[in-house]
């Protein structure tokens, strides 16, 4: 198995890790674009979902979001945004990828935040109004804290999907860990070790992020520990 030997050699050669096009730089670029995309999706999806849910508006939107989010292939979004991004001067690489990642990240965050607020037990909301809280106070002091666990679940699901999909950014010229896979595939059989190395790195990063966000979720919502 020459490919495996080649892959081990690729991953254990120091010069492949350092420098402008090294594994560390590309790994950092991968994490950076994912982080930016998570932040943008969260600040777009969560406030909108919380407000709509507080007003009990647009319940079907929340269900439609999940289905649509699953049905829209992320590869298609990146491919679609790419020509537009070039035409309107946002260039290659970062922005087409980031827009696609945000589009991918919004549905799980929206749906979970919406469900979190809507599923706050009705008797608790009524009790809060009963002791004289205004609508905004009910939202801030009761519905929001009650929704935090589901919101975090949304962030975790979105985050893992975003890190996984950032790999495809390599197709539109964003240099990340996916570049090893795309460049290696383009080189044919001689590129196989690079492809395998890239795949291992991407898989390791996705699993690490999944684990990290799972821990974060548990740390931020300690009161849920008994339920698991």
């Amino acid at each position, binding site marked *: 198995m020459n490919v495996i030997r080649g892959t081990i050699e690729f991953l254990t050669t120091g010069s492949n890790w350092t420098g402008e096009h090294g594994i560390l730089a590309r790994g950092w670029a991968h994490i950076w674009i994912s982080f930016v995309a998570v932040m943008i999706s969260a600040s777009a999806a969560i406030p909108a979902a919380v407000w709509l849910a507080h007003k009990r508006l647009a319940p079907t939107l929340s269900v439609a979001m999940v289905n649509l989010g699953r049905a829209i292939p992320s*590869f298609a979004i990146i491919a679609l945004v790419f020509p537009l991004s070039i035409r309107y001067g946002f260039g290659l690489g970062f922005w087409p990828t980031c827009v696609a990642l945000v589009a991918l990240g919004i549905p799980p965050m929206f749906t979970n935040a919406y469900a979190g607020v809507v599923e706050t037990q009705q008797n608790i909301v009524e009790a809060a109004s009963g002791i004289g809280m205004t609508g905004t106070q009910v939202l801030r002091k009761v519905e929001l804290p009650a929704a935090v666990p589901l919101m975090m679940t949304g962030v975790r699901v979105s985050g893992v999907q975003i890190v996984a999909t950032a790999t495809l950014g390599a197709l539109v010229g964003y240099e990340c860990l996916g570049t090893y896979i795309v460049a290696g595939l383009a080189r044919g059989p001689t590129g196989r070790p690079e492809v395998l190395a890239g795949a291992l790195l*991407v898989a390791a990063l996705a699993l690490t992020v999944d684990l990290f966000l799972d821990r974060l979720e548990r740390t931020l919502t300690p009161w849920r520990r008994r339920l698991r």
Partner: protein
Amino acid sequence: MIADERRSIIWWGWVGDHLDDIWQRTVEHVQLTIIAMLVGCVISFALALLAVRVRWTYRPITRVASILYTIPSIALFALLIPFTGLGILTAEIALVSYTILILVGNTVAGLDAVPESVKEAADGMGYTRWRRLLTVEIPLALPTIIAGIRVAAVTVIGLVTIAALIGIGGYGALINDGLHRNFPTPIVIGATLSICLALLVDGGLAIAQRLLTPWRRGQ
């Protein structure tokens, strides 16, 4: 003039000239999806039955399935290439592995939710284990199982587009083609048809579930 049409979001003239090609891609996309779903269902149902009968196997099964599910699809395709080459087998192994977590989870949840009293009644009537499973437990678990099949099918249809990156057909081939030529029309057509196919299959399975479980219609 031609240059403007090429740059526009959709150029109907191109679509008209390439209907054969688009149909061919549709057939490929559907075939890849059907194979993945059939194999995925067989493997998952076997694993789910094992997990229900031999309880301790449930956690390791879902643990492995969730690791497979977390690995990005393009990485999973790439991981398999050295062993299974560039071809349908590589694509199908990856696609099947994404269905397992969803299908096993829903099947086990559905079977677990069958009330104990119903199972005891079946035992009391002298049903064998297999007859009880086939005629009592599976029908009652069917809504949950089909809900899992719907999610898995929609996921697979979206993922098939990525298989184009390792040279397999389907709508992804249209998207890839448009991306390489900086030509939006095939991208729009490939993406739209992929979404339509996913929604169509989702709706079709929802109707199938209603037809297969007539006793639930009043609820």
